């Protein structure tokens, strides 16, 4: 409760350092989240592979919220908050649906070939931090983070345009 209050005051009065997407739990909106996450990853200098992996993990996590927390309902809130951290990106996914049973959050054995059962595996194999929190009063919170090997490049454009000496 206190955390929520502090956050709102922060939002209206002071500075913000996050990008937040609040969307309905509708599969057709996943592309919006993906586009935003990909752009943020590019801004911090992630390689294309790092960007793709991060985007994949967030998309899989949102898909699972839609499928499991909301049982396929398309009009429930999903809040995706991304923060550019020291050498990477942190992404919090918040839902207000059915609580996950932590022990059940796991993909199938990869050798047991069948459709499905890969999302959690993809999230865990692409992100450096994957932390499910079902202790909130309502719903679930998933924290993901990915770090670049080297500290991420500063988010400023310092491309030096090539200007030849001209007559």
């Amino acid at each position, binding site marked *: 409760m206190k955390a929520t209050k502090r956050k709102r005051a922060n939002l209206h009065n002071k500075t913000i350092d996050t990008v937040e997407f609040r969307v309905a739990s509708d*599969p*057709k909106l*996943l*592309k919006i989240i*993906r586009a935003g996450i990909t752009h943020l990853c590019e801004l911090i200098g992630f390689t*294309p*592979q790092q960007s*793709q*992996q991060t*985007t*994949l993990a967030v*998309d*899989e996590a949102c*898909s699972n919220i*839609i*499928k499991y927390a909301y049982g396929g309902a398309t009009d429930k809130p999903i809040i995706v908050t991304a923060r550019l951290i020291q050498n990477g990106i942190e992404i919090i996914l918040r839902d207000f649906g059915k609580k996950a049973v932590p022990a059940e959050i796991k993909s199938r054995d*990869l050798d047991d*070939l*069948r*459709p*499905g*059962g*890969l*999302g959690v*595996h*993809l999230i865990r*194999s*692409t992100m450096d931090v994957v932390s499910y929190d079902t202790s909130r009063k309502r719903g679930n919170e998933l924290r993901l983070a990915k770090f670049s090997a080297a500290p991420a490049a500063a988010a400023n454009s310092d491309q030096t345009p090539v200007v030849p000496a001209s007559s």
Partner: protein
Amino acid sequence: MLDIVTRQKDQAVIVAISGDVDLYSSPEVRKVLIGLTGRKAPLIVVDLRAVSYMDSSGIATLVEGLQQMSKYGGELRLFGLGAAVREVFELSRLDKVFQIYDSEAAALPDNQAAETP
């Protein structure tokens, strides 16, 4: 958003997909594959050149197609995987389960025969 064009080419049915294959659009891919496996198409070649994004729901759809086809001895082949799509297959350790080719020519049986006369 998603565009699927299916055409017959000799013994093969080529399914060309354009767009992102995700939780929203993979049911459309599934419909097409189910239609084809329902009438036991012997060879389905999926053209993924124009797919810039695929998640586990797309993979699941292809795994389902593969399993349906193996029941009647049909073959599912893929070609034109970009780096992002290929990586999802690799992370899922399915890059060795699917028959993945570099080009349509390589994926079609006629040309294979031509290459090894």
